[in-house]
């Protein structure tokens, strides 16, 4: 049993009296001004505008659609990238010795300390 069950209900007259008060209180509520409507709708337009602007991912995808064919699509770009990585690895690998071949015969075998030794020997 709730507290309200234990109390006598309001009489119709008491209900009417209270409703008159509620009605008066409802009329004290301000109504939104045109300026407030305008501010709220401006906020809505701003948020909708932000939603329409593509994000970074979408912008990158659009850029790829433009320049991708110049690289031969994904396969071409992949080959270019793999070549670049291989070139960097070869460039950074420290070779201590080299063998120079000329006309099917080794003309130099040795270290790389003296770059002049790699030049072809005249005569």
């Amino acid at each position, binding site marked *: 049993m709730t507290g309200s069950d234990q*109390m006598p209900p*309001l009489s119709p007259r008491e*209900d009417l009296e209270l409703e008159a008060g*509620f009605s008066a209180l409802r*009329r004290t509520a*301000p109504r939104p001004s045109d300026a407030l409507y305008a501010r*709220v*709708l401006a906020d809505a337009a701003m948020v909708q505008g932000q939603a329409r602007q593509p994000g970074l991912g979408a912008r990158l995808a659009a850029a790829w659609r433009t320049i991708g064919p110049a690289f031969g699509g994904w396969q071409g770009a992949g080959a270019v990238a793999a070549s670049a990585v291989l070139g960097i690895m070869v460039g950074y690998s420290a070779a201590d010795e080299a063998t120079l071949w000329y006309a099917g015969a080794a003309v130099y075998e040795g270290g790389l300390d003296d770059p002049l030794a790699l030049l072809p020997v005249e005569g």
Partner: protein
Amino acid sequence: MTDAARQFEQDKRLLDRFVRGDARAAEALTAEHLPRCLAQAFRMLGSRTEAEDVAQEAMLRLWRIAPDWRSGEARISTWLYRVTANLATDRLRRRRKSASIDDIAEPADPSPSAEARLMSEDRARALAAALNALPEKQRIAVTLRHVEERGNPEIAEIMALSVEAVESLIARGKRKLRDILAAKASSLNYTDEET
């Protein structure tokens, strides 16, 4: 389909349209929900300027959450009620004082005669004071039901209570209001019905 379910579906459709960039959906949602937000904030804060700021902020949060709105979770009006209440409470905490009932604005729809208008103002002030004297849950339930005119199922959703508990709170709140107002009844001439 019940009115609440119909409203729920309509809100959901409007939010979907808003997310797709439909400006008219924003207008419809604003027309539906801004007056309640403003009224609720005004009742809590007692200042029109602050209430407008709170209502605008609450609506802005709705626009921002729209793309992530999970249908079936809550009604927009319920969600907005909570957001508005939180924003207004934050402001109340910041200024560390309650809104005075003396700050209640002039009625927007004044009665035909000055005497009737004054009577209406007196009633509103007396009822506002009596409402503030109620225990918090009773005050919220009675205000939502009889001032904001929301249905008991929605009030139950807002207050996270059963409909039966809400009915009990409203009944007890009204009885207590009646007791508080009884002392002033003669001076306020409550027996003269306006409507």
